[in-house]
């Protein structure tokens, strides 16, 4: 018995030592030449891997270390703690604003990002970064209605259809406070960023009225339920809509005429950055039309890069799931942080709706 256990322990030790000696494919053992290491903090599965490989091939003195996060909030906590030297991150719009206000971002030297010229004008000077000093848009998308063409016969062009009693128990709403309240606000003709308590109360009444018709409040599961055809309509993000439409050809996506929310994930340089010039080189590389194209094809969200759009399959653009037309976008808004006071009202209203 003892011998066997000693052998077992020795074996484990041997495995551990060999593994550490071999060095991992992606981590920092191996040759210790003076390479600049860029720590890239990204959403999981949010970049085509070959893009990183091509970057490293083009700039052999730089190595990219990819680390991933799940939510904007997780990323914020880690960057704020300053324990690790993140050089590039890709937060969403409202988080960029918050990090900017708290001084967690470094100004990007746009002279080092010549490819910034490819970014469409409609994606510049947005409310979260009005002077384009801190962020370069990576991908963007919208919120809309994913519906099943065989179950919904009339045209889907207004949020009002989500209140149609014909579709009782066939509607999936988003289980996200800002998205669902925003839908009700838009249907009533108000801004998605409304700070008026009366408007918000009105939206709350509408959502309570709608509740008996709703099959489920879901986020991630919505697309699976739509693929399985267990619901007729769902409020989803455009990226999820694209994935679902690839799996089930009866599905279609629409952005209602009242307007909707559109969001951005943009590249920023956090205050922890140690290699700003190399980080800018990397951001610039991601804006190369071919590289951006690879990412768009891999992820499915929309690109803000006009040159990339020219390279895209024209079908993908006219099929307005990923790329809404300018008029569709006209009524769309980016979420803004309403301030602590009104944010509490949003929280309270959402709790009241869910508890009703």
């Amino acid at each position, binding site marked *: *018995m*003892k011998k*066997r*256990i000693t052998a*077992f*322990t020795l074996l*484990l*030790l041997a*495995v*551990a030592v060999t*593994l*550490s000696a071999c060095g*991992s*494919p*992606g*981590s*920092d053992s191996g040759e210790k030449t003076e390479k600049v*290491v860029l*720590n*890239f903090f990204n*959403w*999981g*599965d*949010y970049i085509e*891997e070959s893009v990183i490989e091509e970057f490293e091939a083009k700039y052999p003195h730089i190595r990219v*270390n*990819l*680390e*991933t*996060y*799940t*939510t904007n909030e*997780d990323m914020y*906590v*880690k960057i704020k*703690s*300053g*324990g*690790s*030297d993140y050089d590039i991150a890709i937060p969403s719009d409202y988080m960029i604003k918050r990090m900017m206000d708290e001084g967690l971002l470094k100004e990007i030297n746009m002279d080092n990002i010549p490819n910034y010229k490819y970014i469409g004008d409609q994606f510049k000077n947005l409310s979260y970064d009005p002077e384009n000093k801190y962020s370069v848009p990576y991908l963007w998308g919208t919120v809309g209605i994913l519906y099943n063409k065989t179950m919904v016969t009339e045209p889907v062009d207004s949020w009002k259809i989500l209140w149609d009693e014909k579709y009782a128990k066939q509607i999936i709403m988003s289980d996200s406070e800002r998205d669902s309240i925003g839908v009700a606000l838009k249907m009533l003709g108000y801004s998605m960023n409304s700070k008026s308590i009366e408007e918000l109360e009105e939206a709350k009444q509408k959502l309570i009225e709608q509740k008996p018709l709703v099959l489920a409040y879901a986020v*991630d599961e919505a*697309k*699976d*339920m739509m*693929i*399985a055809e267990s619901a007729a309509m769902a409020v989803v993000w455009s*990226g*999820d809509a694209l*994935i*679902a439409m*690839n*799996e*089930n050809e009866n599905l279609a996506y629409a952005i209602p005429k009242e307007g909707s929310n559109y969001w951005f994930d943009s590249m920023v340089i956090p205050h922890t950055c140690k290699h700003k010039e190399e980080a800018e080189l990397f951001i610039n590389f991601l804006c190369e039309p071919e590289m951006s194209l690879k990412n768009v094809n891999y*992820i499915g969200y929309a690109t803000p890069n006009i040159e990339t759009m020219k390279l895209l399959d024209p079908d993908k653009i006219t099929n307005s799931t990923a790329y809404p037309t300018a008029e569709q976008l006209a009524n769309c808004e980016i979420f803004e942080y309403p301030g602590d006071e009104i944010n509490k009202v949003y929280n309270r209203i959402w709790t009241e709706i869910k508890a009703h």
Partner: protein
Amino acid sequence: MKALKRIYLIIIFVFLYAPVLTLIVFSFNDSKSRGHWGGFTLKWYGQLFKDRQVMSSLYNTIIIALLSALVATVAGTAAAVGIHSMKKVLKSFVMNLTYLPVVNPDIVTGISLMILFVFIKLDLGFTTLLLAHITFNIPYVVLSVLPKLKQLNKHMYEAALDLGAKPLYAFFRVILPEIMPGVVTGFLLAFTLSLDDFIISFFTTGSGVSTLSITIYSMARLGVSPKINALSALMFIVVLVLLLIVNKRSATNGRNEAPLINI
């Protein structure tokens, strides 16, 4: 009655293994969806081995689990022996200190370790991740070794000394073999806990060092890739085969020996 017993057993096994089976079946699904069967494919297995991010996370996960479990087992066993021979008041005080990290929520442990590492200016990365895992593993080893020490006849050690053994020799030749099942249990417990920890790992890692749970969890936004199903299926089968081999060996090797894995 017998039929009832059998049905009960079957229900338990269905609950335990249905999720794993579903996962394995869907690793062969041609469609990326979890709700829809798109035909048989092996492509996720092919893609899995080409995915640099997943492979380096797998590597980190195994290394961290092995190293942290080994260190924690050594440290925990030594601590258990020490605690065992303490006076009563001190013993209950130290035992309470040991229980605390076990009942503490992971998020508290994770954030406080992160703040500590940042405060002492240790760069977050592989080292801090390993230290964090050793920290949360030690109490489990202590708690699984202590009962074995309590069962031990305390005169055995004295007898060994009387017969001329040096204390160290007596410990390795007399005490350790007796408490070995507890030590192995502690090691395995530490190994599994380290394998599937997410929260503490997320907050204490940095510089691009990811474990599998971090990589998988961060895919949630775009939908977890079926590559992960393929990986989980492979891991499940490897563990299953290892267990079968170990149990088979201990069944054939001598009648008096207890099976090696005896939790």
